[in-house]
Every structure is written in C-alpha cells, then in structure tokens.
C-alpha cells in the first residue's frame, strides 16, 4: 500500500516588512477573507477574517499577546487556537503561516 501524498499548498501573500509587529492585514484568497497577524514577539498567525460574533473584520483589531480584539464589539480571539477567549464562545478557522526568504506564505489546505 502506498502512502497518500498530501502536501499543504503554500500561497505567497507578501513581504514580511509589509506587516509591522502588532498589526494585522487582510488577505483575499478567492472568496476567502483571511486575516494575517504579526504579534509583538514576531510570530505570524492567519485566521479567517470574520469574528464569530457578528462577522467583524478581525484584521482591523488591536493585536495583543497572541490575541486580537475585534473592532466591532471587543470580542477577543486567540489566534493560535482559533477560538474566542472564554467566556465568549466561537471558533475561527486557522491557517498555517511560514516565512520563506522574507516572503509570507499561507498554507491553504492540501494540494491535489
């Protein structure tokens, strides 16, 4: 039996310097809205750009720790977990991110 070859499809979305620390940017992939973040400790996160509460644009929120606060009603989303910070409840999809030669790449599910 041969192992199925599954690979993450990485998509380049811009240079690292276009994203200062503690900031978010919106990225569009087809119909998908993805929010990309660089936190104060220089880690990158990508989550669905829709707050689970009322669909607010998370990419415009204030970034603190590994969280972002949605600009519409102050829900706090844990970027690593892709979850609203309790007691709020809700999930957002997360995407893997990496930097290759100063270029940010988002992983979008498996390649065919």
């Amino acid at each position, binding site marked *: 039996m041969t192992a199925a070859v599954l690979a993450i499809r990485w998509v380049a979305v811009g240079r690292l310097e276009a994203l200062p620390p*503690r900031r978010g940017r919106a990225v*569009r992939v087809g119909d998908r809205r993805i929010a990309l973040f660089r936190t104060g400790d220089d880690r990158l996160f990508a989550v669905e750009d829709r707050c689970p509460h009322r669909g607010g*644009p998370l990419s415009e929120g*204030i970034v*603190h720790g590994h969280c972002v606060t949605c*600009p519409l*009603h102050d829900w706090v989303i844990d970027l690593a977990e892709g979850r609203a910070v309790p*007691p709020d409840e809700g999930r957002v999809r997360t995407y893997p991110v990496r930097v290759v030669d100063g270029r940010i790449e988002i992983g979008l599910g498996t390649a065919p």
Partner: protein
Amino acid sequence: MSRPRLVVIGNGMVADRLLEELLRLAPDLYDIVLFGEEPWPAYNRILLSPVLAGEQEITEILTRDDAWYAERGIDFRKGVRATRIDRARRLVHGADGSVVPYDRLVLATGSRPVVLPIPGRDLEGVVTFRDIADVERMRAAAARGGRAVVIGGGLLGLEAAAGLQRLGMEVTVVHLLDRLMEQQLDDIAARMLREDLEGRGLRFLMERRTRAILGERRVEGVAFEDGETIPADLVVMAVGIRPETTLAREAGLHCERGIVVSDTLQTYDPRIWAVGECCQHRGRCYGLVAPLFEQARVLANQLAELATLRYEGSVTATKLKVTGIDLFSAGDHLGRDGEPLVLHDPGAGVYRKLVLKDDRIIGIVLYGDTVDGSWYFQLMQDGTDVSSLRETLLFGQVRLGDSGHDPVARVAGLPDDAEICGCNGVCKGTIVRAITEKGLFTLDEVRAHTKASASCGSCTGLVEALLAHVMGGHYERPRGERPLCPCTDYDQDTIRRTIVREGLKSIPEVMHFLEWKTPDGCRVCRPALNFFLMVAWPEEYRDDPASRFVNERVHANIQKDGTYSVVPRIFGGVTTPAQLRALAEVAERYRVPTVKITGGQRIDLLGVRKEDLPHIWRDLTAAGFVSGHAYGKAVRTVKTCVGSEWCRFGVQDSTSLGIALEKLCWGAWTPAKVKMGVSGCPRNCAEATIKDFGAVAVESGWEIHVGGNGGVKVRTTELLTKVATAEEVLEYAAAFLQLYREEGRYGERTAFWIERIGLDELKRRLVEDPEGRRALAARFREAQARAQRDPWRELAERAPAEEFRALAEVPA
C-alpha cells in the same frame, strides 16, 4: 532543582483567592501544600445564608473540586487541621500526624464565631453560624420545626434568623442593645428594619443579656439576666467573630486582636504571612470579602516576588442579605462628627441619611431603597466635593438628569427580565445567574462573563449595585482608584504621573517600568498609554498606529458591515455651494450609498469601502476639506446657530466665533470625544448647554459653559464664567481642553471629569488663576502646531494606498 515550599494553612475564600492569583502570576515558583480543616474543597462562604434559607444547595456553592488542586500540583490536605507551627525547624504539624516543612508560610485561618461563656453553651442544639457543618446542623434542627432563638441582632444573626424563619421555625432574635445592627445603622434605620422584620413574623427581645442556656442534654430554653426565660429548640449564637489566632499565638507570633501584619501582610516572622479575617492590619481586622480579597491580591503579588503592591487598608460598606430587605450602610453612619442630610418617608418605607463633612460624604445609611448605595459609596471613597450636588443629592443619581438609567432605576426590585445593559442587551436575571452560578465577585468578572457594562459603561453603577444585592454584605468596590485595565494594578493617574516623573517615552518603556502583567497590553491600555505619551511628550512622541483603535488608524468610522463613514470638517457648520458640489461629486464618484446630515451639523458619507478611503480623501483634500475627526477621541464639531449676522434675536456673531473655535481646536486628541457649541443668544439654538464646551451669547459678551453631555447620560453644562470678548472665549477653550487633556482620564467625557474634580476646582484653575490659564492655553497652542496636520492629506500624499487594500488577492 527543588522549588521552595509554600505552606498555606486554611482553605477559606481568601486562601482560595490567594492561590488562584499566585498561580496566575507565578505558576511554577512554589511547591504548595494546603491545609483545609473542613472536609470540603473551597466554597463560597457568602452563600451560606441562601443555603440555610433553602434557596441553594451546598454542592452549588462549592467553587473547586478535588481535581482543581491535583491539576495544579497543589498538595491539598483536605479535612486536616494544622495543629502546631515549629518556627525554629520551619515545620507545620497536622492533626493526622503529618509534618510538613516550609520555606514560606501563609496563615489564612479566618475567624471563629464568638461563643458566650455562659452555662449551657455546650448543649446539643446550640450552634454558631460559620461553616457548612453549622448550616447542616441548623437545617437538621429546622426540619424538626419548633422554636429558634438567635442571640445577636447584627448582620449575621439577622441573616440566620431570616433563613430559619423561612425554613418554618418560629424565630426570636435577642439583642443586647436597643438598636439592631448598631455597627451599621442609626436609630431610625434600625427601627424601620425591626418593624419590617416583625412584619414578617420575627420576634425581637431587645436589651436582653443572656444569662444561661437551659436544658439537660438538649437545649430547652434561654434565660436572661432580668429573670425572664423563653423556650427554645435551637439556639444560634451570632454575637460576633474573633480572628482565629491560636496557632499563631502558640508559635509566638505577635498578635493583638488578630495576627499583626505589615502593609505587605508579613507577620513579625519574615517567613510567615497572615491574610484574611485572622490578621490585623494597622489596628483593624476585616470581616467582609472585598478588603480581604484585596489583601489576597497584595499577598499574591508579594509571594510572586513582584513586590509592587501594598495593602493600605479599606473602607467598608455593608448590605444585609435578607430577601426583600434593602439596607446599605458605610462609613460614619451616626454622623456625630459631621452634618447629616436626611430624607425620611415612613409611608413609603424609605430612609436616606448622608453624613457630610467639609462638603464630602463620610457616612451613608440607606433603608428601603438602596439603588444609589454604590454611587454614594463611590462619591465617599473618591472624596468628591458634593457641594454643588447638595440640593438634589438625597434624591439619588437618577435625579441628576440621568435619563440613561431611567428604565432600571430600582435594581433590587426589578424583575429578572429587566434590561440592565442596553448596549449588550443583558438582563438582570442573566447577571444574577452568572454571579451565583459562576461565583463572580468583581465588576471585571461580570463584564467578562456577561458583557454587562462592558461597552459604554453607563450601567456600571447598576451592575455594581446588582453585585452588592446578590452578594449581600460582602461586595464592595475595591478601595481607591480602579486599575486602568486587568493588565496592570495601577490607576490612570499613577501611570500618567510615573510617565512624566520617570521620563518614560514609549509604550514598552511604560509597561516595563510599571511591570505590566501582559506582554503587550490589551485594547484598553495600549490606546490609553499612546494618548498619555502623546500629551506628555508632544514634541518627541511618535504615535503608535498599532495602539490605535481602527477608526483613529484609518481616520474613518468603522460600520457594522466593515465599511467606513467619512465626515469632512465643515468649520462651524457653515458651508458653500462649491463645498456641497464637491461633496456631491465625491459621493457619486465613489457610489456612496448613504449621505446623512449629522447631529453636529456635518455631512456624513456612509458605506465607503476601505480601499476607496485614500481616493476619497485625495478628492476631498483637493476640494479644500480636512478630516472631521468624527471617528476619534478628539475634538469633533462646533455646532452654531446663525447669530447676529442674520437672526433678529442674535446678540453676538456666533458663526464667526464657532468657526474660529473650530479652527483653533481641530486636530486635538483628547481623553474622549469633545463636542462644542456656540449660540448667538440665550435662546441657545445651538444647544450649547449640552456640549463639552459651550459659549452662549449675552448682550455684554459670552457665557462659557462646560461639562455638558447629550449622549448616554444627558447632563447640562455648568456655568464656568462670563467674558466680554470672543478672544477670551478662545483662550478659555484652549486652556479648558489642555487641562482636560492633561488631567482627564482616558475614556472619561468632560461631564464625568468635572463631576469627579468639581466645578470649583475647575474655576480655581481656569478663572481665578489667569496665569495658569494662559500657560495652559499656550501649551495647547504648542501642541496644536504639531497636531493640526490633516491626517487625510498626509495619508493620501504618503500614498500607501496599498495599505488600505488587502495585502494580497490570490485566486482560489
């Protein structure tokens, strides 16, 4: 490497809070051993009264289960009493024969109920009211019915009496003095309370000294010194509590009434701390939960080796937790030392007494209607000058034009479905359930769990009143100022003073120096710090866009669908056909879906997509517009009427002054939004008396009004002064705004700021001190020279239009 061992003796509410806080600050610092005498994990002692009354079950008030301790590596000796401390060898002996060494030791032994040294005190059926075992005994006795005698007419005794009566017992309360709850109530309130409780069937025997409890094996009756005897099947001794200091005394620690501790809660042995009801701080022992939690917080901070907090004592307030009785008391309630203001309506069962001294509240007694308790208490704690409120003070906050509170003005008597927080649609029932089911104690916790008062904050007082209502005698606001946010223990004023004193020039510097608890703050503190730094160092500080709310970063107002609204500045609300034409063209060019005239006499273009913002600004800038700052904590608009130029009643040129005022002030960042108005005659068509700063023309010049608010809480302005010329109005405006920028708290509108500091203080700084006023105005103008750059032009010219687009658009 082995970690130091921390031993905690006692597992009451304070010890529990201490552990929680300590593990949050320093999860791995200690190996922790916890002795708990009761055979239960931690529980909420406050809720014993509802348990006694049968309103809740014991399992509902447990706040931890055994797994909680195990998961955190705490060695929990449940049901084991510590019997001896060997300070020389640093050992704690347990009743089960165990011996545990310590490096640091915390005594949280709480208190014991006082048992009167009278014959019969050991009889079966004589109980105290302190822990779960006591409640179980009382409930078992009540199940048999019969007569209960409660000795002690204080807070605890009355709660026990009400609970037993609810369980069907016939209850008599015996009190030594002629006044119930003499530590909290004056004569009138005590009498009203007694009458209400008598109306519910409780019986009172006042001024009776108990001589003995009668009975062979079980209690049968109570005898008094005057010779009278009454029958009893259950006797509850609720004559007070005494700090539990036995272990400490036997170990040779210095004790007076309680275990004597310093401001860091340290005993005379530097390896031993004491916290909660067992300790005595600056001569006082506390029995209410809020000051004790404050102690726990300080001690956690010390044990975590941060050493940034000290405990400096607390002011306490009391509320009786008997369903249907509303009573609030704080401070010097007898008022021997001050001047009482009294409102007494026996028919309605309402009594309010405030004791004033030097125009400040020093004592509060409320009976029958306590909804304003937390407000008065805040005024008392803040030391607010109430001379200007004096005429209406007794009628409460609702009487001060507080229409925002109107639907929910009587918190205790409200139905469960009454809405408390209008912003987030939170009802009373939701909040009460969250408090009781989740064991919430603080305003922040209620905010996190329910969102009540988490938005505009106008219902904060109601939520605090609800907390007080649900938790009875055990909730108070923490003493002193609230911390800026949960990331820090410091309040805004301390932070601002430290920034200036220590020359801190950036957000990371401030966070480092003041030992922020989070790596880079939160959405509350970062914008505040950004503002503080901007005001402190107007020349050097570089604005941090990452610490700005989206609106102030993109200079537009985010809408519910993620689009933005754009409001160009129209100085004084006076426009021209050319301006209107330019606006119309822009609206059409960018297919702006909605064009709306705002309340501040400006034109709002709504529904603009973010990527169009730089283009719209470029076009608006070309037509001569600047940003209207309708999105920020900034000077918004100056509303005017047409004034003497056209109006047959106008006595001064209000439009010219309005335009000059807006030209002077636009671009200034302020602690919260600032709206202004200029009216050309006392008819006041510009509604200047509900603005933050308003000028109203009179024949001889201008009246200057400040501190109005037309928003959540309608408040009319107060008259600051009268001046002769428009130039003077401008100077006052500049000085007023600068003082507000320098001393107002972030997020605090001028109305609240002025209520906090008092109009007299404002007059002293601005009217009676012309030199100070001119200096403030000069500082404002200096800051304005830098601030009055149109952000739209800058953004449009810097042309980072791509910053306003998605970073990438990739096909699927």
